[in-house]
C-alpha cells in the first residue's frame, strides 16, 4: 500500500479519528491513559494505534518504561497541500480580482 493509501485508510475509521481527537486534546498519552475514556477494548485501541502509526499520524516516544503517543499532523498538512489548497486558489484569485477592481473604481 502506498503512503497515501495507508493515510486515507487510517482516517476512514471513526474509532481512529476519535483517538486522534483524544491526542489533539491531550498529546503524549500512554495506552492506558488513552483507554480510560474510550468505549473500546485495550486490544482495539492497540490495533488502531498501530494503523495510525503505520500511516505516520501517530508518533511514539519512549520515556523510561512508558510509551507515549503523539498526534503527528504533518501528513494532514500534506493532504491539505495536495488535495485542498488547489481548490482554494480560484476562490482566492476571484477575491483578489474583485479587490483590485473595487480599488481601481475608487481611483476614478
Amino acid at each position, binding site marked *: 500500500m502506498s503512503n497515501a493509501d495507508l493515510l486515507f485508510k487510517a482516517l476512514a475509521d471513526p474509532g481512529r479519528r476519535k483517538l486522534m481527537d483524544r491526542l489533539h486534546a491531550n498529546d503524549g498519552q500512554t495506552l492506558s491513559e488513552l483507554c480510560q475514556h474510550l468505549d473500546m477494548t485495550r486490544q482495539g485501541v492497540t490495533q488502531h494505534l498501530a494503523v495510525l502509526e503505520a500511516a505516520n499520524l501517530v508518533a511514539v*516516544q519512549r520515556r523510561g518504561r512508558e510509551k507515549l503517543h503523539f498526534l503527528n499532523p504533518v501528513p494532514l*498538512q500534506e493532504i491539505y497541500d495536495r488535495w485542498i489548497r488547489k481548490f482554494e486558489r480560484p476562490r482566492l484569485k476571484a477575491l483578489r480580482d474583485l479587490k483590485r477592481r473595487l480599488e481601481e473604481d475608487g481611483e476614478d
Partner: protein
Amino acid sequence: MTAADRSQFVYVTFIRTTPARLWEALTDPQFIRQYWFNTTVACDWKKGSPWKMVGPDGSLTDSGEILEIDPPRRMVIRWQNEWKPELKAEGLSRCTIELEPVDSAVKLTITHEIDRPESNFITAVSGGWPRILSNLKSLIETGEIAITSQPGH
C-alpha cells in the same frame, strides 16, 4: 518530571533523500529561507554556538544555542522566543531534530518541549512546523514549495 508538567510535540515526516542532503537543507541559510517563509537561521552549527532565527525584515524572532550536534544525525537547540514578550517570558525550550535513514527515505523527527504545562509558546510553534515540514519535503522531493506564504500574510 511527568508528562503533565511539560508541553511537547513530536512531528515526523519521511523525505525521499539522503541524510547528508537533508542535513544541508536544515542548516543552509539560503535553503532554509525557501521553505521557512523567508525566515532564516544564523548559526555556525558547532556545539555551544549561538543560534538565531531572523525574520524576513531582518528582525530577531528566536534565539538560542546549539546544545548537541552530530551531523547528519541529530541536533538539539536551546530555543527561546524573542518576538512576543508573553512567549519569551515562558523561558527556554528544547528542540531536538533527528534524522534516520529508512529504506530510500529519511525519517525526520522534530521534538519540541518546554518544562511547563499548557505552554503558549509550544502551541505557537506547533502551528508552524507542519507547514514548514510539508514545504521542506515538497522542496527536496519536487524542487517546488507547496506554500508560499503563511496564512494571514
